[in-house]
C-alpha cells in the first residue's frame, strides 16, 4: 500500500499573505491533484499534474499556483490569502493520466486571520 501525506494539517496566515501547502505520495502515481472543499459543498479541482513538471489548470485555479517538482510531490500556493478562502484543501493521486481510482490525503485546513 501507499500513503499520501499533506503538510501542514492546519495553516494559519494573514490576509494578503502567500501560503504554501505540500503533498507527498509514495504510490509512484503519475497524476496528482489539488481539490478545495468548502463546507457543505463537493470538491472542486484547482490544479492537476499528469507527470513531473507538468501543470494543468482546474476549475478554480485563479489565485493559486502549483508546482510538481518531482513525481512524488505536488505543492499548492495561495498567492494572496483571503478570508473567503478558508476551506479544506485535499491532495489526491492516481495511476495513469486520469480515469483511475483516486487516493486522497487527509486534507489541510486553511485559516485566514
Amino acid at each position, binding site marked *: 500500500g501507499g500513503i499520501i501525506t499533506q503538510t501542514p494539517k492546519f495553516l494559519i496566515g494573514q490576509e494578503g499573505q502567500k501560503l504554501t501547502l505540500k503533498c507527498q505520495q509514495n504510490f509512484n502515481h503519475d497524476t496528482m491533484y489539488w481539490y478545495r472543499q468548502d463546507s457543505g*459543498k*463537493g470538491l472542486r479541482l484547482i490544479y492537476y499534474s499528469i507527470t513531473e513538471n507538468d501543470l*494543468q489548470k482546474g476549475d478554480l485555479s485563479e489565485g493559486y499556483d502549483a508546482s510538481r517538482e518531482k513525481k512524488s510531490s505536488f505543492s499548492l500556493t495561495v498567492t494572496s490569502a483571503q478570508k473567503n478562502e478558508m476551506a479544506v484543501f485535499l491532495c489526491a493521486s492516481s495511476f495513469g*493520466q*486520469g480515469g483511475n*481510482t*483516486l487516493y486522497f490525503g487527509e*486534507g489541510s485546513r486553511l485559516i485566514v486571520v
Partner: protein
Amino acid sequence: GDQVEQSPSALSLHEGTDSALRCNFTTTMRSVQWFRQNSRGSLISLFYLASGTKENGRLKSAFDSKERRYSTLHIRDAQLEDSGTYFCAAIIASSSFSKLVFGQGTSLSVVP
C-alpha cells in the same frame, strides 16, 4: 450549472436498516466513483464503475449502463461505523482529460 446532483443531502438511518443514495448527472458520464469521507477528512474510495454493478460487503453500487446518467449506492444493514459523508464523482464522457466532477455529498448518520 452543477453536473452531478446528489440526493439526499442528509440522511438518518437506524441501525440494521437499508437505504440508497443517488447521483444524477446532467450529461453522459464515462465512469463514476463513490467515496466516503472519514472523520479525519480523508476520502476513501468505495467503488469505481465504468458500467454495471459492484458489491462489497453491505455496500452495492450501480451505474446505469444505457443512458449513463445516474448511479446509486445501496447500504444494507446499516451500522454505526457507516456514518460519514458520501460523495459520488464522475468523469464526463466527452472530456479530453479524465477529470472527476464531484457531487455535494450526502451526510449519513446511523443511529442506534
